[in-house]
């Protein structure tokens, strides 16, 4: 995203001076608000363009006049057929091939064997155990509803991503065209994807699957492109000299050699699929996500926790399995190893599966566990939670009141008070100071577009929530990261926790905050903070721990005390990495603010939910783009700064 020109640093003093002048103008505009004409305070009507109407017109044109809806419906019918097959196998939906549902024991055994094959008995325990938990807790059908969609959506997303990635690698213009689209796509909030899908495809599992595919494909495109670019020229040349034609060269030489990146892409696709499938409950996707949504809305904490645990287990299992696949290298058997030894795992699997089917035949409990037979601990959880809440209530009530009265409301008012022209000037000035004239113009364009959509106030509220959350995240995450980075074992533990937490679908983070604060603004911000804390902590640790040991030792030999060393040596060096973490925190926070809309906020997210409800594509996309622009603005500023810093420090 950063061109070489933006990184070159020759015009530094002039640049900063011009930037400062613009920031000064911004301050003057803000201070002089009371004498400003109204049109400089709020975007005047002539500036607000009816983008939503245009988009709606365009969609209607494509949908009805060009008859595109038949294409999408035909595509959806194809997807639905696949979904019916997996739905039948996994939870016995009454569709072809009418074989299902497969006994839960069989699926658990298969999962455990895959886990064992990928990374030994620990992973076997995790994957098998996940399914046992789901079955025993009586959530089998819901979990299978969720998985039946992932099983269809993930491979299609992988394939689509792979093909787009290859096209982008082969043709420079495709890459150039895709790049901005991917940038925006990856900063659009989840809901923005759902509305067009509802328009074109409708509601239910197939729309859930399709929105999941669309949402999950971009990282695959990126990773495929990266992987293909990284294939060493010698390997490609050795393929050419072996007489491979283009097709053979691509599929037998380049793609297999990009295996690692492609598998990392697959891991990302799977995790994105899970995140989206859970959220797609908003457009009628059944399964664990929908159950969680309903239970959370009904404030049934105990049952939400049970479902939440299942979702978390599935997330960890999928993540661990796909990551193990990335590092799993093929291994040879020594000569003379007999056939049954070579295929030991397959035989074992076949044997155990037969046992499972037999058991299912004679023992209903080994086939399906009904909800009446299932274990449940929600009453106990509820009791514990209730006691805890009674205990914590004075604190949370006080905190809630204090935050709303003394922090959130004043902060929101200040944000809303600012004239939009001052914000524009300020952002442009910052862009100029950090980057160049080009950065200033980019920033100006992003904010200007938001002003032109007419959603200025809502966008400002979103910004205020995100910026408050990010401030809190920095205040907690930075010290936490510094503390964790002081000892290797501790750092590894915290990193592990962060990595694991990062795999959870964002929805999960709502459970504890709803439990503590109920359904309101503070809960929403709480969820954003918890969610954003993960990347901040993670990158702080990584930044501090990746300071070269020689520099560390040099500082020791200069007699720096721990504190001096931290602030004078390690921290400045780690800052560019930490900035990347900050960037992710902002993006994560934006997403979470939007998701949290359903527990009652007043920002863009709320409007987006309205747009989703009234299937207003234009409004939904415009709002989505507003969110994306905020994200891209921050992304541009932080990455430009970080790249400059890295060049200045000579670390790449």
């Amino acid at each position: 995203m950063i061109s070489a020109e933006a990184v070159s640093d020759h015009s530094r003093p002039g640049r900063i001076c011009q930037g400062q002048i613009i920031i000064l103008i911004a301050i003057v505009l803000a201070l002089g608000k009371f004498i400003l004409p109204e049109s400089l305070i709020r975007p005047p009507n002539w500036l607000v363009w009816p983008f939503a109407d245009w988009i709606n017109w365009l969609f209607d044109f494509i949908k009805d006049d060009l008859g595109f809806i038949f294409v999408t419906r035909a595509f959806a019918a194809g997807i639905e057929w696949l979904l019916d097959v997996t739905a039948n196998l996994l939870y016995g939906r009454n569709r072809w091939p009418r074989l299902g549902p497969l006994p839960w024991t069989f699926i658990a055994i298969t999962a455990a064997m895959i886990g064992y094959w990928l990374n030994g008995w620990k992973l076997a325990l995790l994957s098998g155990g996940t399914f046992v938990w789901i079955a025993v807790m009586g959530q089998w059908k819901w979990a299978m509803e969720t998985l039946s969609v992932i099983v269809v959506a993930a491979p299609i997303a992988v394939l689509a991503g792979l093909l787009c990635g290859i096209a982008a690698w082969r043709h420079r213009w495709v890459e150039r065209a895709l790049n901005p689209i991917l940038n925006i796509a990856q900063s659009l909030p989840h809901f923005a994807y759902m509305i067009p899908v509802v328009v074109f495809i409708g509601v239910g599992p197939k729309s859930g699957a399709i929105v999941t595919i669309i949402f999950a494909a971009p990282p695959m495109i990126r990773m495929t492109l990266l992987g293909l670019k990284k294939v060493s020229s010698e390997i490609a040349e050795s393929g050419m000299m072996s007489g491979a034609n283009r097709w053979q060269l691509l599929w037998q030489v380049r793609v297999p050699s990009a295996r690692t990146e492609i598998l990392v892409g697959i891991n990302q696709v799977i995790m994105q699929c899970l995140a989206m499938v859970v959220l797609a409950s908003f457009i009628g996707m059944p399964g664990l996500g929908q159950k969680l949504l309903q239970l959370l809305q009904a404030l049934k904490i105990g049952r939400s926790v049970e479902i939440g645990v299942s979702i978390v287990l599935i997330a960890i299992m999928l993540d661990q399995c796909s990551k193990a696949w990335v590092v799993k290298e093929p291994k040879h058997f020594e000569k003379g190893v007999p056939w049954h030894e070579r295929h030991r795992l397959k035989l074992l699997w076949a044997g155990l599966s037969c046992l499972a089917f037999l058991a299912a035949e004679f023992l209903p409990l080994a086939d399906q566990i009904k909800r009446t037979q299932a274990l449940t601990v929600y009453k106990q959880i509820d009791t514990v939670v209730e006691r805890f809440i009674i205990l914590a209530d004075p604190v949370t009530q006080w905190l809630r009141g204090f935050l709303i009265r003394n922090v959130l409301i004043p902060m929101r008012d200040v944000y809303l008070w600012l004239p939009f022209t001052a914000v524009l000037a300020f952002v442009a000035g910052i862009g100029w100071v950090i980057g160049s004239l080009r950065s200033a113009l980019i920033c100006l364009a992003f904010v200007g577009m938001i002003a032109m959509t007419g959603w200025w106030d809502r966008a400002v509220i979103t910004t205020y929530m995100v910026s408050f959350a990010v401030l809190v995240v920095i205040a907690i995450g930075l010290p936490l990261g510094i503390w964790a980075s002081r000892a290797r074992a501790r750092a590894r533990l915290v990193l592990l926790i962060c990595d694991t937490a990062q795999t959870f679908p964002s929805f999960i983070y709502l459970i504890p905050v709803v439990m503590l604060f109920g359904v309101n603004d503070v809960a929403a911000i709480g969820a954003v903070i918890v969610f954003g804390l993960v990347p901040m902590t993670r990158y702080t640790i990584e930044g501090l721990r990746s300071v070269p040991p020689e520099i560390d030792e040099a500082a020791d030999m200069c007699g720096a005390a721990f504190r001096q060393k931290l602030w004078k040596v390690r921290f400045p060096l780690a800052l560019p990495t930490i900035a990347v973490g900050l960037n992710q925190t902002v993006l994560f926070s934006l997403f979470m603010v939007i998701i949290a809309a359903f527990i009652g906020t007043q920002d863009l997210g709320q409007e987006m939910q309205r747009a989703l409800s009234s299937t207003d594509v234009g409004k939904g996309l415009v709002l989505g783009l507003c969110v994306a622009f905020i994200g891209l603005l921050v992304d541009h500023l932080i990455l430009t700064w970080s790249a400059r810093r890295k060049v200045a420090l000579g670390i790449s």
Partner: protein
Amino acid sequence: MADGSETVISCRDVWKLFGNHPERYFASIPSGHNFDDIRNDGYIAAVRSASLEISRGEMLVIMGLSGSGKSTLVRCLSRLLEITAGEVIVEGNDLSALSEKELIELRRSKMGMVFQSFGLLPHRTVLNNVAFPLEMRGQDRIERRKRALEMIELVGLTGREDYYPRELSGGQQQRVGIARSLAIEPDIWFLDEPFSALDPLIRREMQDEFLRLQGILGKSIVFITHDFDEALRLADRIAIMKDGLIEQCDKPDQIVLNPATPYVAKFTEEIEKSRVVHVSHLVAEPSGDIAEMEPVSASATVRSLARRLISDASEELPVVDEQGAVIGVLKRQSALELLYGERS
């Protein structure tokens, strides 16, 4: 080896420029522009006006430091890179005139190449790596397995057919690379710094192995190296490159004895010439009677005669060729000068 036999590869006045629209630039290039002038115009002249001929069964070593254009040149000879100007004729075909299909056909039947970092396919076993070129040209499974096993035996890796590349040491991996490049029985064998990534001991071992193979196979070889010792050790002829230009192309003895440019001379300074120069290059007319004396072989290196030169004080030694016929004398004085350097 090379004498009088047909030319397999010939390249004439080959240029390779990197940059935007190199052909357009090449057409307008002022004569007398050197490497740096061209670079200032925004182009890299990786190969400049290179002309070479490789005869059947000959081993040509292209030697140069990194960035000298040697790897680019060998890629021009195999059309892994399109040349900017000039022509490359391989087995009578103008390489740049071949269609993609014909080029692939040529590679499938006539060319093999070994790479510096081996270029093995990480997802295939040793056997499947070696069989890869055969698979590409559509040979059936049984036949290609048989042929691949032969090749694996040839390079001494029998028993490791089912290993994956990452399970092998560097030297073993390069043996796989060599086996693969030989699987289709190529006439022309390109080796791009095949031993540079190996540590010195293994490198030496692999060079011996390579000489053994060449002894059996007798291919036409283009061998790239940045190691002058290696070049001297292996080459029938050496081409020395600098900044895209071939500075000198000649037999090792000639290069050592008569460096064409100061740049070449700098390489040869450090070399113990007596190891390289064969007696045949020092043969002179006899000035006295030599009949009685025990003759020396024309193909021996001067170094191998050191002991005799010191113990035997006669001024001239008779030199015989492979058939045992006397072809002249070796003057003790000139031989000792070569051994111990000229008196200064």
